[in-house]
C-alpha cells in the first residue's frame, strides 16, 4: 500500500508541489485517528480527500496549519513541509504559517461583528491598518467570492444576518484577504442547502487558478466535478488510513484498490 502511495507521490512531484506530508500520524490520547498519510498538494490544483466519516480527514486538515496545537491530548508525528519549511518544527511562527495556510470550516464561522469588521480585524492584526487599503481588499475579496453585489450596501450589518451560503463565502473571502497560498477546506458545502452548495462549489473550482486547495468532502460527485487529485481515506483496524492517492481521473476510472472501487461505485461507504 505504501508503495502505491510513494509511486503516486512521484507522479505528482512532476508538477509544483507546494505542501506535502510524510508518514503523518495523529492520535488523541491512545486512540489513533489516522496513520501514515503521505500526500502532496500542488500549486493551482484542487486536491480532494474523500472517505467515510471518522477516518481522520478533518483531523488531517487541522495538522496542516497546526490547529491541532489547540487540542490538549493530541499527538502528531511524521513530517509536513510547506515548500522547504518544516511545519512540524515547534519553533516556527504559527501565525505566519496560518497566514500562508487558510482554513475553511464545515460550519460557516463568521465573527459576530459587522461584515466590514470581519475583514478589518484580521487584517489589522496582520498589520494592514490603513482604512482605504482595507476597503480595497474587502472589495477585491468579496468580488472574488461573488458576494460583493449582494452585500456592498450592508457592510455595517452583522455578518450573522447573512444566509448560510453567504456566510460560508464570507469566510472564504476572509481567508483570501490574508493572501494565503494553501486553502484547507473541511466539507465547506455540507452544512449548506443545495443551491448555496452549488455556488460555493463553483467558487472553489474557480479558486484553483490562484491557490492550492485541499478540500475534504463526503460528496463523491463533487470530488469528481472539481478535483484534480483525489485521496481516499478508509478506516482499517479502527484507524484512518490513506488507501489511495492519485490523479482524479485515474482514481475514479481505474482505481487500484478494491475498497476504492467499491466506494466510488457506491457499494461501500
Amino acid at each position, binding site marked *: 500500500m505504501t508503495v502505491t502511495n510513494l509511486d503516486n507521490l512521484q507522479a505528482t512531484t512532476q508538477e509544483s508541489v507546494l505542501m506535502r506530508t510524510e508518514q503523518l500520524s495523529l492520535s488523541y490520547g491512545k486512540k489513533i485517528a489516522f496513520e501514515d498519510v503521505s500526500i502532496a498538494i500542488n500549486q493551482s490544483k484542487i486536491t480532494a480527500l474523500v472517505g467515510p466519516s471518522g477516518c481522520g480527514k478533518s483531523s488531517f486538515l487541522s495538522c496542516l496549519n497546526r490547529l491541532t496545537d489547540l487540542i490538549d491530548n493530541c499527538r502528531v508525528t511524521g513530517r509536513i513541509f510547506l515548500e522547504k519549511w518544516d511545519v512540524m518544527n515547534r519553533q516556527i511562527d504559527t*501565525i505566519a*504559517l496560518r497566514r500562508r495556510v487558510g482554513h475553511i*470550516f464545515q460550519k460557516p*464561522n463568521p465573527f*459576530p461583528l459587522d461584515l466590514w469588521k470581519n475583514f478589518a480585524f484580521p487584517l489589522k492584526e496582520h498589520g494592514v491598518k490603513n482604512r482605504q487599503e482595507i476597503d480595497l481588499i474587502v472589495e477585491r475579496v468579496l468580488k472574488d467570492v461573488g458576494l460583493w453585489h449582494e452585500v456592498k450596501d450592508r457592510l455595517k450589518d452583522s455578518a450573522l444576518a447573512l444566509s448560510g451560503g453567504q456566510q460560508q463565502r464570507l469566510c472564504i473571502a476572509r481567508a483570501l484577504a*490574508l493572501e494565503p497560498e494553501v486553502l484547507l477546506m473541511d466539507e465547506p458545502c455540507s452544512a449548506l442547502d443545495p443551491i448555496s452548495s452549488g455556488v460555493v462549489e463553483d467558487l472553489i473550482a474557480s479558486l484553483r487558478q490562484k491557490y492550492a486547495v485541499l478540500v475534504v468532502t463526503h460528496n463523491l460527485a463533487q470530488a469528481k466535478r472539481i478535483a484534480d487529485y483525489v485521496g481516499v481515506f478508509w478506516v482499517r483496524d479502527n484507524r484512518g488510513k490513506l488507501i489511495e492517492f492519485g490523479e482524479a481521473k485515474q482514481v475514479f476510472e481505474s482505481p487500484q484498490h478494491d475498497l476504492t472501487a467499491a466506494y466510488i461505485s457506491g457499494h461501500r461507504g
Partner: protein
Amino acid sequence: MTWLKDKISSPSKLNKSSQFDWDWVLVWVLRIMAAITGAIVLLIVIFLILESLPFLQVKGIGPFFTDQRWNPTEGLYNFTPMLWGTLLATMGSVVVATPLGIISALFCQYYAPVAIGNLYRRLIELLAGIPSVVYGFWGLVVLVPLINRLHPPGASLLAGIIILTIMILPTIALVADASFGKVPQEYLLGATSLGLSKWGTICNVVFPAAKSGLFTGVILTVGRAIGETMAVLMVCGNVVETPSSIFDPIRTLTANIALEMAYALGNHRSALFVSGLALMAIIVLLAVAAEVITVTSSPVTKNS
C-alpha cells in the same frame, strides 16, 4: 425516572389505565411548587406596600428628600444621606470588582492550564459561599483597624467598598466565566486559523460575543451589592451623613433597616418599610434591565 420510561415505551391508553400515572402527580407537584414560589414574591411585595402606605398616605415621599436630617424620633425622615451611602458603596465596589472579575474569568478560560483553571474556579465558588457575616467579621477585625491607621476612624465608605468588592467579585467572575464559556468554539478556531493573537481574539471576538452575558452579570451583581446588609453594617460606621470623602463613615439603607426596625413604631416603622419598598423596586428594575439586555443584544442567540 422509571415512570417516564414506561410512558415513552407504552403510550397506549390501554396500558395507562393499568398503572398509576406518576407523570400526573409529578406535573401537579411541580405546578404547586411554582405557584407557591410566585405567591411568596407577590405576598412580600403586597406586604411591603401595605406597611408603607400609612406613611405615604400621610406625608407622601417629599419628607424623604426635604427634611433636615434623619431623626425619626423628632419626625424627620431624610433618606438622602443613606441613599448616597448605598449608591456610593455599590458603585464603588462594582467599579472595582467588574474588571477584576472579568480578568479572573479570562485567566480561567483562556490562559490557565485546564487543571489550574478548574481548581481556580472551585476556589472562586468557595469564595462565593462564605457567609456574609464572616466577611463582616474579618472586615471589622482586620480591615477597619488597617484603614484607621491610614486615616481615622477606619469604619468608613472605603471599608464598605473593599468588603463589598470581595463579596461580589466571585459572582462577577463566575458569571463572566460562564458567558465566556458560551462563546462558540468555532469563533476561536476561526480566529486561530486566521493567525490571530489570543488577546486580539479576546478583545475583538470574545467580548462582543459575551457582551450581553457580562452586562447581565454586572447588573445582577449590583443587585447583590445593594442588598448586602450584614457585612456593610459591621464595617461602615453607620453614621447618618452624606460622606464627603472615602474615609467618612456611611449608613446604607439596608443597614438602617436592620439597625432600627427592632424599636421602630408608627411613622418611623412605616418609613423603614418605604425604604425597603424602594430597594425592592430597584432590584426589580435591575432584573428587568438584565432580562432586556439578554433578550435584545445577544448576537449569539440571534444566530441560533
